[in-house]
């Protein structure tokens, strides 16, 4: 037995194993430390978890856009954060108008539906334009080229919107219908967080149905498996790709309005940058190219960001725990990727596809 262990020993394996053990120990010590100090009540943990789920659903909706495009084109659409911003930033003006005229308070559900439609349309148009102008001419070029184009398109969109709408901050009006709290497990959960979670869930289920049960969805899956053979089978590749971008845009636009319900402030030309990065992280975490993976990754990242600093870092006695929220989220991503490079739900791609 010992002989075999010596034979199979490798330094890399040893370091990875010790990294696993160290991480596990740190996390456990942190969690135990925090829970033992009793600083937070269980109702506070529940409220943090639920707000994490709400935030995570928004990440998930945006992550779906990343994952769909990656599945089809094997490229990361870094401008997707700006697609989200386009919808959110445009709908805020409509929302302000509704609020001023009183339409919002009289017919809240209809107004929210109208906002969703407006935001989805704008985001969809931006996504389709992106595909047409920035990505289609570059199909077939080395992988790095569309990546750089995406980053350039991201800046272009940000500053175009800055030019159109100004650099000030706007905010969505508060909707009376979804304000208020509901008592679950001893903590007061704002109703809006549950609304956000369930509407995002609804959209994700709709997407799942679209991808699995409709003809277009079948075409999307075929193109993501093998573009050339799908073309031979008679599938119009361009149409499928445009459709994918459009779906991603619709989801991102809806995420923008839902985000406005949940967190009304901070609407600005720059608001898509950080959610874009976080959603990309979530997509990779869940397994890029996998639709359930993006959903799971988003929810997981949201909850982790919400609970992680307070749960793990404070127990370890690290000062400024909340400032390290992003650091801990990305560290978690790095660790997951070290030990499971395909992400949580991803499949290891065969060599010839990569």
């Amino acid at each position, binding site marked *: 037995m010992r002989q075999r262990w010596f034979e199979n020993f490798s330094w890399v394996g040893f370091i990875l194993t010790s990294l696993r053990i160290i991480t596990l120990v740190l996390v456990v010590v942190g969690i135990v430390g925090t829970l033992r100090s009793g600083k*937070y009540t269980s109702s*506070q943990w529940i409220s943090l978890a639920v707000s994490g789920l709400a935030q995570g659903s928004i990440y998930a909706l945006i992550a779906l856009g990343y994952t769909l495009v990656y599945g089809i084109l094997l490229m990361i659409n870094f401008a997707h954060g700006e697609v989200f911003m386009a919808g959110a930033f445009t709908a805020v003006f409509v929302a302000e108008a509704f609020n001023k005229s009183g339409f919002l308070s009289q017919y809240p559900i209809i107004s929210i539906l109208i906002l969703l439609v407006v935001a989805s349309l704008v985001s969809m148009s931006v996504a389709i334009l992106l595909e047409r102008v920035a990505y289609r001419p570059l199909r077939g070029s080395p992988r790095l080229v569309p990546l750089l184009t995406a980053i350039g398109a991201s800046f272009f969109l940000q500053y175009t919107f800055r030019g159109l709408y100004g650099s*000030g901050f*706007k905010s969505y009006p508060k909707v009376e219908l979804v304000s208020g709290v509901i008592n679950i497990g001893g903590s007061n959960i704002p109703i809006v967080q549950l609304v956000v979670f369930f509407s995002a869930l609804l959209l994700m289920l709709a997407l799942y149905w679209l991808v699995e049960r409709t003809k277009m969805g079948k075409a999307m899956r075929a193109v993501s498996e093998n573009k050339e053979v799908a073309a031979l089978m008679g599938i119009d590749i361009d149409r499928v790709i445009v459709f994918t971008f459009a779906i991603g845009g619709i989801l991102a636009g809806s995420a923008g309005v839902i985000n406005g319900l949940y967190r009304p*402030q901070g609407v600005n030309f720059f608001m898509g940058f950080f959610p874009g990065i976080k959603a990309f992280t979530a997509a990779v975490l869940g397994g890029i190219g996998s639709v359930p993976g993006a959903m799971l990754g988003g929810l997981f990242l949201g909850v982790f960001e919400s609970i992680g600093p307070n749960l793990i870092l404070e127990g370890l006695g690290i000062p400024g725990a909340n*400032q390290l929220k992003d650091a801990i989220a990305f560290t978690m991503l790095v660790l997951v990727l070290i030990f499971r490079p395909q992400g949580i739900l991803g499949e290891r791609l065969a060599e010839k596809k990569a």
Partner: protein
Amino acid sequence: MKRITLFVLSIMLLSIILAACGGTTLECDDEIGCVEIGADEPIRIGYMLTISGATAFLGEDSRGGIEIAIDDRGGSLLDHELELVGEDSLCSAEGGQTAAQKVAADTQIVGVVGTNCSSAATSAMPILSEAGLVLISPSNTAPDLTDRAKTWQPGYYRTAHNDLFQGRVAAEYAYNELGARTAATIHDGSPYADGLQAVFADVFAELGGTITFQGAVNVGDTDMRPILTNVAADSPDLLYFPIFEPEGNFIPDQSTEISGLEDTIMFGADGMLVNGYAANTGPAAIGMYMSGPFVSGANYQALLDKWDAKFGGSPPSGFHAHAYDATNILLDAIEKVAQVGDDGSVLIGRQALRDAMTATAGFDGVTGTLSCSETGDCATGEALGIYQITDAEVSGGNWPPEVIFTP
């Protein structure tokens, strides 16, 4: 042939020597160096402001003040046209450094008005100081920038109040007028916010209060619930968060959801004193306090009228008057030390300019009577006030809010 060549060469040499000796060239005997401006060339004033990003309103506000000051002089100084060139310093150390490098590379720039954010100034100053330039800021408030033991560099001046004063006013108001005995602070990692909350905490503790929590968020964070849950664990009387939008919008709004913070007084600072803050934050901002620049008087009203005439409406932030005064101090100092040649060219010694600016005393500005200290603090702290946000600001569109206290 050889003789002719020698003859021509000696004629050329003679003419070169004669050309150099003759004329009205001004001599530069300044320690650092001089800016030489030809007869038809403009005098270039630089600005380094935040004209893009989330805090772009600060840059627009300051730039307007600078432009009005230049207009008031008819766009020219010493019969030379005044040319304003600018760089975007963002509100970060990297932005300040990049902008400073570009400005320092242009040797024709006489002086710079900027930056808006203390983080940009901290990294810009070593470069600008090395290049012999002067930087006068309308809105840097971090105490370290004029502290010889900290990040002060020769050539730095400011017309904005030092946060040592603002933090003290806020803490004294919180303790004495509001009766708070426990407080928590949240900053965003920038020198401005960190410095200001540190001053507040020190003074508050000095007065006898207790600081229960001092934490930070990152710029770009949208979810404040974890840190607010942390704050709520001790239920402080007051929460002091001297940060910018949009983080400053999220904190009051999300604190309504956290149990334990229902009675906590929200207290902000001048980073959030921007037109639109109250409307953006929503009803959660009603009753919130803010410290910030407060300028009043007939001169200020005249400045506001000029702003309305030139740009329309009212300025987006609170430091335009400081930018106006800063530009005037700079231009006055240039006028004082410039040597004008017979042909209209101008020579400005860099060290002489610095000395003139440091010697500014009793300057009658819109923000008060300004006298610059050795380390560049020109403001006396007269122009500060405590504001309270009411429903008029949130839904009525009123801005700025009423001043309820001046020190």
